[in-house]
């Protein structure tokens, strides 16, 4: 059931796309709302158990080997966040319907919103660190898309990119931190990790791990110095700001801090890092907020400041500070979402967000103004509103910490009060500047009250502000209690949720903040002048500069490495391989093993000398192309001899046929590649290449020597030799391995062959280079296709085909098989094309080679499927023996059908490749396909 809470929005994200395209706006609103409501209903349905203190869990294995599982947990904290996400989500969906203009694609917006919602729900419900991270990254991605929703606007794109860069970089740090944490705790399951608090905190890796995880949390929650992305993310449509940048996504960071609180918190390092960052962020952003002229900019900085407050509370680590922190998470989400929505209404109605122009709107939109002012008062911490309560608890905690002494200074309550003053001042600015303070200046249009549905979400949220503010214990009390309990990981100390705690220090601080804030706002002109002279630093410029530096550096590296020269790539590649080989050899060990070695016989020595000669000449004369091809063929033939000498008749047969086909191919290509009679490279370059080549040769020779002088582990060979007859029904073990034991590999290789043939067809279709030299003179038919060749080729075809059939049939027992028979057949066919007129031969043979290889591949797959049909694994073979005159004893096996498939693929592919080149030759002679 838990799985569905997150899954419904993720899958439901497709619905508005479908509905938006076809049905119009209202249908997509209702589907989106229905999907969200379904998740919310599920949460509510499950919530009574959670209120009883039970932690619901669900578990589906995914990649248990990696410790990655679909495990979910619903405890107090997850429930709180789940309700915020779905509840505020519903309101935002309604709001967006009336906020977005007709021309905006509502379906896409809702799809992205649901995607984000599902990711967020998955994150808060995840009971596995890796799963949590997965959803965490998904929120980054979907928020990128949402911020950039108006993708035609440059600021939207830049803002989205910056948000993604910062949060994704944090996500990477978080991944590293999670891996460390999972390693230390011995599991990625949160249930295990949360119980391993002591182990983790005493581990030497704790500081590094903590910093990595905090990097992730701080970037996401826009903590100083990573806060700068949030103001620029205000380019998003206001519903997105209200949802992501007040209630949900930016809370993911503090959620993570709360989630891992039992494991990580309550150390000095945690106190200084988390508390310190929170305090700096709280003060800095509150100060900066005052100087924003953009309505949403003010709200963004105020959000950063409030997030800093929550972080600071979690950093203080006492259970009551946690209660205050969680309480403020709720309150901030409620009043800030409503403020964003109100700002959106003003923007929507006036077309302007500049507070220097927006003045005196109260008389135009009194009802909206009242709502916004109430929410802003909650932000400032005015009594009877929810913000007052959590702020009061915050002040109380700072006083408590100061009184407890220790490392905490009396500075803390003082700074808290200063932050409170700023907070009151910017709230006052929001209220006074926008709704009073004279008349509007040059607004695009004068506002009216918005449609009731646009305002309704604000009304709901402000009502919650009031309800919570007046009767906290009856409204939010139980939820707060279970959420804080699951953060602390144990029973909470007694506390009272009430407005009135008597005259005490926190009340004094609140009053000071209110009065000080009012005074500060009153004296704002002086402050603004100060602010203009010393503007709060903008991280954007720094970020852009860093980004540009990074891009320039990577570009230089890429251009240095990738200059389009194959020579350089190969030289680098071989150089790196050499370095790796030398590094491996450096670690010591004997090169020569202790295997006794047989002496060299004369014949082998002669063959080797011949090979040295032909190879050397190929290298020397590689610019004389025809000679080089012939010499290369010579090298190939000696390799064939080596195969025969070393007991591999199958290889010798294959190499021999391939050698012929390759030579034909190279000869065909010769006409189209210019000869380079001049040596193309500088002597120094040749020297360098020769050095590399010799080193590579020495390396390979040493490797071969080291291998050959050591005894072989015989198990694998013995297994195949022993099971070839009883298991595969063939005496030719190489062939049995190919068509039976490792049939799946062969299927893959046949596929590669087909792909190569098709690739060559694609490459040479419609793009053939001009020949280097056209035929020097007109030749007679007799001269081009000598009679003897023409006449001889035809019976040769029959003979070769017969031989191929023989080689094919005996392949399972004696050297031969589909590969070799296929190559032989291809050769026989190629001879026909060489001996006769291309057009005539094509007409006579009338073979579609593309179909041939396709059929072969299908046959291979089909053989495999048949065995699967009988309940055996894919490509299991079955066989029986038969006897034919002349051919002798051979067996009929399903492997035979397999080998036939291989045969067809080889014939088809080789002919396709040869004809592709040959056809061009023929076309040049006036032949049309």
């Amino acid at each position, binding site marked *: 059931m838990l799985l569905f809470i997150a899954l419904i929005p993720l899958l439901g994200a497709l619905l508005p796309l479908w509905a938006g395209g076809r049905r119009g706006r209202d249908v997509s609103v209702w589907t989106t709302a229905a999907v969200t409501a379904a998740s919310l209903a599920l949460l509510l349905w499950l919530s009574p158990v959670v209120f009883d203190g039970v932690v619901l869990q669900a578990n589906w294995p995914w990649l248990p080997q990696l410790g990655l599982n679909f495990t979910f947990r619903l405890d107090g904290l997850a429930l709180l966040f789940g309700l915020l996400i779905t509840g505020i989500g519903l309101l935002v969906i309604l709001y967006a319907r009336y906020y977005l203009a007709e021309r905006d694609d509502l379906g896409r917006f809702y799809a992205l919103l649901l995607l984000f919602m599902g990711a967020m729900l998955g994150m808060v419900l995840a009971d596995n660190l890796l799963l949590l991270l997965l959803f965490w990254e998904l929120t980054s991605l979907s928020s990128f898309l949402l911020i950039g929703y108006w993708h035609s606007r440059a600021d939207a794109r830049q803002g989205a990119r910056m948000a993604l860069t910062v949060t994704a970089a944090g996500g990477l740090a978080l991944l590293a931190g999670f891996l460390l944490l999972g390693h230390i705790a011995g599991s990625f399951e949160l249930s295990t990790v949360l119980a391993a608090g002591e182990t983790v905190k005493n581990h030497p890796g704790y500081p590094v791990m903590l910093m990595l995880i905090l990097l992730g949390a701080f970037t996401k929650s826009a903590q100083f110095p990573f806060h700068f992305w949030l103001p620029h993310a205000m380019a998003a449509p206001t519903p997105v700001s209200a949802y992501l940048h007040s209630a949900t996504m930016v809370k993911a960071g503090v959620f993570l801090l709360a989630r891992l609180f039992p494991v990580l918190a309550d150390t000095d390092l945690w106190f200084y890092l988390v508390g310190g960052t929170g305090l700096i962020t709280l003060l800095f952003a509150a100060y900066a907020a005052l100087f924003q002229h953009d309505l949403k900019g003010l709200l963004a900085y105020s959000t950063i400041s409030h997030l800093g407050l929550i972080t600071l509370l979690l950093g203080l680590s006492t259970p009551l500070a946690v209660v205050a922190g969680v309480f403020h998470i709720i309150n901030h989400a409620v009043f800030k979402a409503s403020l964003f929505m109100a700002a959106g209404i003003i923007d929507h109605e006036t077309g302007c967000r500049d507070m220097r122009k927006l003045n005196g709107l109260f008389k135009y939109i009194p009802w909206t103004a009242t709502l916004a002012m109430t929410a802003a008062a909650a932000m400032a911490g005015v009594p009877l509103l929810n913000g007052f309560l959590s702020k009061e608890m915050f002040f109380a905690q700072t006083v408590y910490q100061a009184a407890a002494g220790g490392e905490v200074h009396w500075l803390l309550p003082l700074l808290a009060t200063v932050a409170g003053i700023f907070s009151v001042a910017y709230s006052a600015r929001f209220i006074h500047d926008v709704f009073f303070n004279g008349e509007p200046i040059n607004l695009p249009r004068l506002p009216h009250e918005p449609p009731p549905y646009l305002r309704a979400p604000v009304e709901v949220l402000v009502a919650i502000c009031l309800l919570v503010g007046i009767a906290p214990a009856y409204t939010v009390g139980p939820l707060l209690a279970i959420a804080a309990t699951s953060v602390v990981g144990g029973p909470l100390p007694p506390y009272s949720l009430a407005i009135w705690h008597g005259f005490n220090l926190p009340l004094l601080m609140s009053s000071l903040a209110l009065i000080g804030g009012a005074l500060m706002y009153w004296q704002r002109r002086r402050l603004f002048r100060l602010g203009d002279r010393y503007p709060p630093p903008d991280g954007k410029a720094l970020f852009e500069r860093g980004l540009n530096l990074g891009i320039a550096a990577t570009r230089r590296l890429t251009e240095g490495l990738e200059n389009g020269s194959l020579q350089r790539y190969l030289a680098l590649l071989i150089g790196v391989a050499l370095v790796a080989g030398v590094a491996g050899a450096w670690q010591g060990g004997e090169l020569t093993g202790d295997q006794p070695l047989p002496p060299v016989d004369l014949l082998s020595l002669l063959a080797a000398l011949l090979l040295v000669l032909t190879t050397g000449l190929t290298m020397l004369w590689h610019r004389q192309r025809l000679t080089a091809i012939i010499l290369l063929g010579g090298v190939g033939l000696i390799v064939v001899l080596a195969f025969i000498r070393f007991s591999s008749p199958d290889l010798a047969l294959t190499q021999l046929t391939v050698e012929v086909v390759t030579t034909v191919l190279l000869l065909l290509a010769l006409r*189209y590649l210019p000869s380079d009679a001049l040596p193309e490279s500088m002597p120094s370059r040749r020297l360098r290449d020769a050095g590399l080549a010799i080193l590579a040769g020495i390396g390979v020779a040493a490797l071969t020597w080291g291998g050959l002088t050591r005894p072989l582990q015989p198990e694998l060979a013995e297994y195949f030799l022993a099971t070839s007859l009883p298991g595969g029904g063939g005496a030719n073990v190489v062939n049995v391995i190919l068509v039976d034991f490792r049939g799946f590999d062969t299927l893959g290789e046949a596929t590669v062959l087909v792909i190569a043939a098709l690739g*060559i067809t694609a490459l040479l279709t419609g793009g053939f280079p001009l020949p280097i030299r056209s035929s020097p003179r007109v030749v007679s038919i007799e001269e081009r296709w000598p009679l003897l060749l023409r006449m001889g080729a035809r019976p040769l075809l029959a003979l070769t085909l017969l031989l191929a059939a023989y080689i094919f049939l005996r392949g399972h027992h004696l050297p031969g098989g589909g590969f070799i028979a296929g190559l032989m057949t291809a050769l026989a066919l190629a001879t026909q094309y060489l001996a006769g007129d291309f057009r005539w031969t094509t007409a006579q043979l009338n073979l579609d080679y593309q179909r041939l290889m396709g059929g072969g591949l299908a046959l291979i797959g089909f053989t495999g499927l048949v065995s699967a049909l009988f309940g055996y694994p894919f490509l299991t073979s079955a066989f029986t023996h038969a006897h034919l005159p002349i051919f002798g004893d051979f067996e009929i096996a399903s492997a035979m059908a397999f080998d036939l498939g291989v045969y067809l693929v*080889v014939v088809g592919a080789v002919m396709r490749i040869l004809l592709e080149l040959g056809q061009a030759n023929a076309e040049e002679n006036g032949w049309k396909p």
Partner: protein
Amino acid sequence: MEALIAGVIGLLTTAGVYLLLRGHTFSVALGLALLSYAVNLFLLAMGRLTLNRPPILGSGQTDYADPVPQALVLTAIVIGFAMTAFLIALALRTRYETGSDQVDGVETTDPAPDP
């Protein structure tokens, strides 16, 4: 015998690498072919050198050459052919597109074909 084979494989590698590093497509194709020989021989050699004992069962012997490297090399030969062919097709297409058979990253056009 082992030293001889090791030396031969080393030489083939040297020749292959040297030709691979030349600046024209045809040389690269030659180099690749030579390197394929080296690799195939190397793979076979890793099954150790066995004289006159092909892995064909029932020929009255009890000791056979290792069939596994042979099976690997057999497909490697065929794939190697496909690779060479693909390389040549690529070379032809490149010459069609750029008018050159150089792979050194310098944009040049070779002299026009003879009339």
